[in-house]
């Protein structure tokens, strides 16, 4: 199992503490490849891509529009 977490230091949290999950690009339970762009985060009007750390079955833990901070676990991937 691999965790999908918001990377530390992705944006300057002293100015903007929180962002949101802008979109998931796969449905919950989908099979994804390692490196596939699975989600995008929106912080102010800046978009950050989130990629799959491993291949397997995607489980979404923070849905679209959910609030995130660096370190937040937004999903996990169960190995194929």
């Amino acid at each position, binding site marked *: 199992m691999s965790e999908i977490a918001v990377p530390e230091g992705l944006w300057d949290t002293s100015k903007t503490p929180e962002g949101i999950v802008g979109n*998931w690009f*796969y449905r919950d339970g989908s099979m994804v490849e390692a490196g596939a762009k699975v989600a995008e985060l929106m912080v102010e*009007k800046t978009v950050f891509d989130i990629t799959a750390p491993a291949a397997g079955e995607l489980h979404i833990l923070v849905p679209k529009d959910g609030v995130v901070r660096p370190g937040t676990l937004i999903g996990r991937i169960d190995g194929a």
Partner: protein
Amino acid sequence: MPSKSNRILTMSHAIAEGIANEMRTDSSVFVMGEDIAAYGGIFGATTGLLAEFGEQRIRDTPISETAFIGAGVGAAMAGMRPIVELMFVDFFGVCMDAIYNLAAKNIYFSGGNCKVPLVIMTATGGGYSDAGQHSQTLHATFAHMPGLKVAVPSNAYDAKGLMISAIRDDSPVLYMFHKGLQGLAWMASPEKAATEVPDDAYAIPLGEAKVARPGKDATIVTLSMMVHRSMEAAEQLAKDGIDVEVVDLRTLVPLDRATVFKSVAKTGRLIVVDEDYSSFGVTAEIITSVVERDPTVLKAKPRRLAFPDIPIPYSRPMEQFALPNAEKITEAVRETVKKGH
């Protein structure tokens, strides 16, 4: 191996991917407009293109639609396949000479010796309190002018396929996407606007409507955002045993009158829904298409639902009052079906 077609793309990403597919195989394709490069387009339609293709082919322009839409027409006539973004369709005024008098007419004026393979991509639509100069759809303004083709996608799958057809077409194409369908994190979007999208290039021919929902009791003909409002209405009506067919036009020019007529001939009832202004518009054109071919297919008088003939209000309650919505569509279908019995 997972199939890549299980990817759900928003409409904005699907448009950008369609452009990227064509740019990889055709070096004459390039994009220009305001904030389309570093920013990726204010409605996301060119996201990621600068990083892949560089600033020669993904070109930010000054705020002068007169200059860069005109330059697009010239580049198209000189052998390129430009995509120019008019940030809001509402800003057409300052570049209308380039659109109406140059892009639309130069193929004809040159006796067919010049092609104008130009795509003008533009954002349409309201519903988010952006007032009268940032909320119009203006479908009819462009569909009215001979020489322009007009594509109006309602979902990500169609958006990519129609963009690829628009780029490959030798005539100028107005490609009109609704802001509220783009799947932007800062603007609500219907869930079904995002769809599974194959990552390969595929073309959806201009001029083919799609039956978005089959039904037998009444036909709703619609496009863009109103496809989603009409589908909501159809689901509501299904609970009461009224089975509605929804036709998504997908392109206004060429107009797929055959699919519209076939549907109305089957159901006998026609409701046309458009977010553009009511008078002299898409709704009248669709109704006329049916009536002048054979009015006897209608079991009830046709109905239209569109934006009333007023500038679009800024105030949220006033704008929402004026916009067509699922409730109004449901009521119009009920009345049409009732009167037909």
